[in-house]
């Protein structure tokens, strides 16, 4: 089945990269293991957004909410109840998906910018609750010292766990995009009116896409909580949502792997640039604006375009997207 979906050379390349990632903890210093884990978590978050944004054309402006809800679910269950850790980890994505269902239910009635603005508002309400409800969420303090099983508290343990979960999730997302549902979603993105005309329930599909994206965003949140063993209200703040959007743009949002690249670039930039300057957000801002002007398809999109141009294939991205239908 897999062969039908992916070219063999891509499978081989993915396999080699995965093997490399498996071997990294044997040689790399702890800090790099940690930063790679952060990149995996952030990449999953960005990819989950890209699912609705790039493939669904839905203006998901406040995706960080689901990330934060997932992380807070884990933190609250593990610090407030005596339930075992794996229940908390499993609960996170489902609570995030439920939040996605509620927010999505309001938003899908609207389109484009109105959708995005309403989502920022509703998401900010969730943020306010977390930030304000001092007795339960610890307010601005967040929750620290989340208990985790011993093997997950080492950097290597967390690395392998996160890698495994992220690989599974990315695989699932890939299958989803190549599935009939994914094809319908892309069709809705490209022409909602026509889809409506041929009897597709557009709102219904959009809502499902939002719930699925929220689920994977929640998985990323759970992974954040396992890695840092702390959660903060900043995880649900709208600024983070825009940063994730930047990652998608940076990598290229019509490509599957683009957000991974975008997340890696942003995390690396933050780590490296902050060593040299206090003004690294300005650096990010300038890069972002340059990108909007000169590289709107993102780095990955740019590469694909070049590769496609070499192969003389017309409309590079559309070919890639349409291949599932």
């Amino acid at each position, binding site marked *: 089945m897999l062969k039908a979906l992916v070219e063999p050379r891509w499978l081989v390349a993915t396999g080699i990269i995965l093997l490399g990632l498996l071997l990294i903890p044997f040689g790399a210093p702890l800090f790099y293991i940690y930063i790679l884990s952060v990149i995996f978590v952030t990449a999953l978050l960005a990819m989950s957004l890209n699912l609705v*944004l790039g493939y669904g054309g839905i*203006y998901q*402006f406040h995706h960080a909410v689901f990330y934060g809800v997932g992380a807070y679910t884990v933190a609250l269950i593990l610090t407030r109840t005596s339930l075992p850790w794996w229940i908390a980890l499993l609960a996170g994505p489902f609570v995030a998906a439920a939040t996605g269902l509620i927010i999505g239910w*309001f938003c899908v*009635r*609207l389109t*484009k*910018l*109105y959708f*995005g*603005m*309403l989502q*920022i*508002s*509703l998401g*900010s*309400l969730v943020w*306010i609750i977390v930030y*304000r409800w001092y007795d339960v969420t610890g307010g601005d303090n967040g929750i620290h010292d989340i208990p985790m099983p011993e093997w997950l508290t080492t950097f290597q343990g967390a690395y392998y766990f996160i890698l495994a979960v992220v690989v599974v999730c990315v695989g699932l997302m890939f299958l989803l995009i190549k599935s009939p549902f994914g094809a319908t979603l892309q069709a809705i993105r490209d022409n909602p009116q026509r889809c409506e005309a041929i009897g597709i329930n557009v709102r219904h599909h959009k809502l499902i896409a939002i719930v699925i994206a929220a689920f994977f965003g929640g998985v990323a949140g759970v992974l954040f909580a396992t890695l840092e063993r702390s959660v903060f209200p900043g995880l649900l703040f*709208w*600024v983070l949502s*825009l940063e994730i*959007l*930047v990652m998608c*743009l940076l990598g290229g949002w019509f490509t599957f792997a683009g957000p991974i690249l975008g997340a890696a670039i942003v995390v690396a930039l933050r780590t490296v640039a902050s060593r040299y300057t*206090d*003004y690294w*957000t*300005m650096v*990010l*801002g*300038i890069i*972002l*604006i340059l990108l*909007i*002007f000169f590289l*709107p398809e993102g780095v990955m999109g740019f590469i694909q375009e070049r590769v496609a141009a070499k192969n003389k294939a017309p409309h590079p991205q559309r070919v890639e997207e349409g291949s599932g239908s």
Partner: protein
Amino acid sequence: MDPSAVISLLLVGLARAMILFIVSAGLTFVLGVLRVPNVAHGSLYMIGAFVAFTIATAFGQSSAGFWFALILAPLVVAAVALIIERGLLSHLYQREHLMLILFTFGLMLILNDLVKLIWGAEYRSVTPPEILDGAVTLFGFNIPRYSLFLLFVGPLVAVGLWFLSNKTRLGKIARAASVDREMVGVLGINVSWVFAAAFVIGCALAGLGGALVAPTTSISLGMDLTIIIESFLIVIIGGLGNTWGALIGSILFGVSQSLGLLFFPQFAIAFPYAVVVIVLLLRPRGLLRSAW
């Protein structure tokens, strides 16, 4: 409950709403005409406050300094906005909303760091002019004179905006352009300068809000973050692009908060947000008709 307490709280709540109105009117104006959700709007508000501080300090924090600051700060912000619009934003109007919101986000990142570069990190303050300093006693309560001043300025701005959009050529074209941009272009009107003017006016309102808030608060880095989220909520409940909606939204926001303070002080912060949820449940597109 003491009725005079209710009245005085309503007054100060309304005064607070006026600042929110001025800032969110700018946001909604830009949104209505240009369809740009300007995330950097809060940064421009912050710049307005810092510029007001610089001007007021140049005049030794005197009364004259305040009045100059109030007039000049919005103009400085307008100049910044003009540079941004002509230099960068005007090349992006054909792009998707998503690109535009990300563009303004990049702008926000840059502007905030620039404020840090130029003004440093210390807290700043602007002295209110003598006639607006202190409080007057109304119904047995001390109401700051400055709040009464805000109650005067807010409606002035509202009337000014109404005049601008209904009685001037610019406003009429802007309203037409916000409904059907291509049509206006086809009619042979140069939409480009209309858009520039709209963006500059919207941003100048943010600057005016910043200058107006300066005497009541401490001017510091990060003051943009709270105002921008509140403005977005107000714009949403008012109806995107609808200036009167912004006015109603601001009043709902300010008054619900101050009445909440009187009856449930511990939970007062939640009140405006509860209002937002209720409005959105009933009317997801906002209270008044959106401009588009």
